[in-house]
């Protein structure tokens, strides 16, 4: 239901923002015409879907098990792993310009292997080092991609 509500809000927002653009006429539609039509259609679809979900929720028996209730501990551990994994990637992206590509590739690879439970740790470090080295050779030296060198070191 949250997804349908978010889509409804997105549709309404699009329609409102489109109204600030020139709409033109049916003979000569302008910049706002098409997004306005799309915003309204999305709003209508999302509202209909939301209504359908609400009716289904009311019709469901009160003692019905909520989805995902079984195996909740396993789900939580899996979700935590996804959040940690994504957090490490976001941190790596934030550190890319200050630290530079090679150190970030090494650190992020090491962190991601740790989050996924790779053992032994010396092997993780070795894989991270090899990945950073390979990426540096392939992307920077071979493909000549100007990856960030890190302003902390300059």
């Amino acid at each position: 239901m949250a997804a349908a509500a978010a889509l409804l809000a997105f549709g309404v927002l699009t329609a409102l923002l489109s109204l600030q653009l020139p709409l033109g006429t049916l003979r000569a539609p302008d910049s706002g015409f098409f997004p306005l039509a799309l915003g309204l259609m999305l709003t209508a679809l999302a509202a209909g879907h939301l209504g359908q979900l609400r009716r289904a929720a009311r019709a469901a028996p009160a003692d019905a098990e909520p989805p995902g209730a079984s195996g909740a501990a396993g789900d939580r551990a899996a979700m935590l792993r996804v959040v940690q994994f994504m957090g490490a990637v976001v941190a790596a992206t934030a550190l890319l310009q200050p630290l530079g590509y090679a150190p970030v590739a090494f650190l992020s690879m090491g962190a991601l292997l740790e989050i996924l439970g790779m053992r032994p740790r010396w092997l993780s470090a070795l894989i991270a080092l090899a990945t950073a080295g390979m990426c540096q050779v392939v992307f920077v030296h071979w493909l000549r991609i100007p990856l960030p060198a890190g302003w902390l070191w300059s």
Partner: protein
Amino acid sequence: MNPLGSLEHLATGFAIATTFQNLFYCTMGAVIGTLVGVLPGLGPIAGIALLIPVTFGLDSTSAIIMLAGIYYGAMYGGSTTSILINVPGETASVMTCRDGYQMARKGRAGPALAIAALGSFVAGTLGIFGLVFLAPPLADVALAFGPPEFFSLMVFGFVVLSNVTGGSLVKALMMAMVGLILGTIGLDPVTGNHRFTFGTVSLLGGIEFVAVAIGLFGIAEVLSNVEQPADAQTVRVPPLRQLYPSLDDLRRSFGAILRGAGIGFGVGLVPGPAPVIATYASYMVERQIAKRPEEFGEGAIQGVAGPESANNAACQSAFIPLFVLGIPFAPPTAILLGALLIHGVNPGPTLLVEHPNLFWGVIASMYIGNFVLLLLNLPFVPLFANILRIPKRVLLPLVMVCCLTGMYSVNNFMLDIWAMLAFGALGYVMRKWAYEGTALLLALVLGPKLEVAFRQSLMISHGDFGIFVDRPVSLAFLLATGVFLSLPLLRLGKAARERRRVHA
């Protein structure tokens, strides 16, 4: 264009495809595609999306040769895991599991793998023949299309693809709307006005397609796998000498391969996940006409030959609507459309005139790619199967680091990486809530074309919406769209009547 003319152009295509550079990228595409097909959880869509940034330094023909190779290479590779460990490398290999794995359990993995490779080669080659002779006349027909016909065709494509990719039609349509809205960001394609850029210069060119593609398919795929980072598979790979099928295997597979090729080619021309539908249809046909249908599910070689041939033929014919109409009817070709646009190639009826070298070069490369794949998939099966021994906990971080690097290499913008991560998170959540990413991506790519066709149609007709139903071809597409939209409603009505009958 007459058939002889097609053959002349094909000869030119071979001259282009056999340059050292194009041979190299064709082989690379085939090898990478096979790897993508072998690795469960990494399908051709994610594979192509991840590799698009690597093609930026290449000319458009080499780039599309490589990306197309990944698509049809994945179809070959998918059979390996299906047969050896009962895990389909990609969705089109699901049917191969049924009899392929049973054959492997009986010690006949070798013939199963060999027939899968041979069937894929024969069907792929026949599919390319169809592409050569069908695409040019279809392009001549499509040249007569005006904006209303293209608008109706695109609407038809959206609705059908939304309807058959599985799940809720309403959800898929909402995703298509979101994609179309995101496609309006940037410069208005007709007037050049700024739309939804909020003063940000980097948004003037619109949302970066590669960021959306890698995010929705690459990152979301990785995150879904992070939930269950399973250990490496234990794989028993047959030695090379056991790969040869017997004469009886070949005799029983011959008809199945030809029928699979025909079914696959036909299904590939229809919007939807053609390889998946084609494999299912081929399997059902083989079981229906088999002298001993009870063997199906127990290791019948026709159950491997038919579906494997069908998915490769479908994969080849899916290029016809992409190249000729500029409308992708299958999810991987939607990504290929994005790649074509990035390389400055606008596919459609004029592609054969404007970019004949690309069109015929790519087709010729498919012949070569099929041959390369046959060579790869017979003697090197043990090598590819060993890839399965790499644990996911090593593979997933590697893919993620490659995503970050690849995305940065597109424009050297940090903003692109952040956009990719945002779409990755969105794609992951969408999968959790069963929302269809393909519809969003297809709409994002086709959105500007759809808008231009819509606005031009209204300008031509002086604001009269009747233009969409006055023209017979446009009307036919809209009627077909109506039929597809009403199918779920009819199913709902039937289910409601059934419930009422049970309660009564």
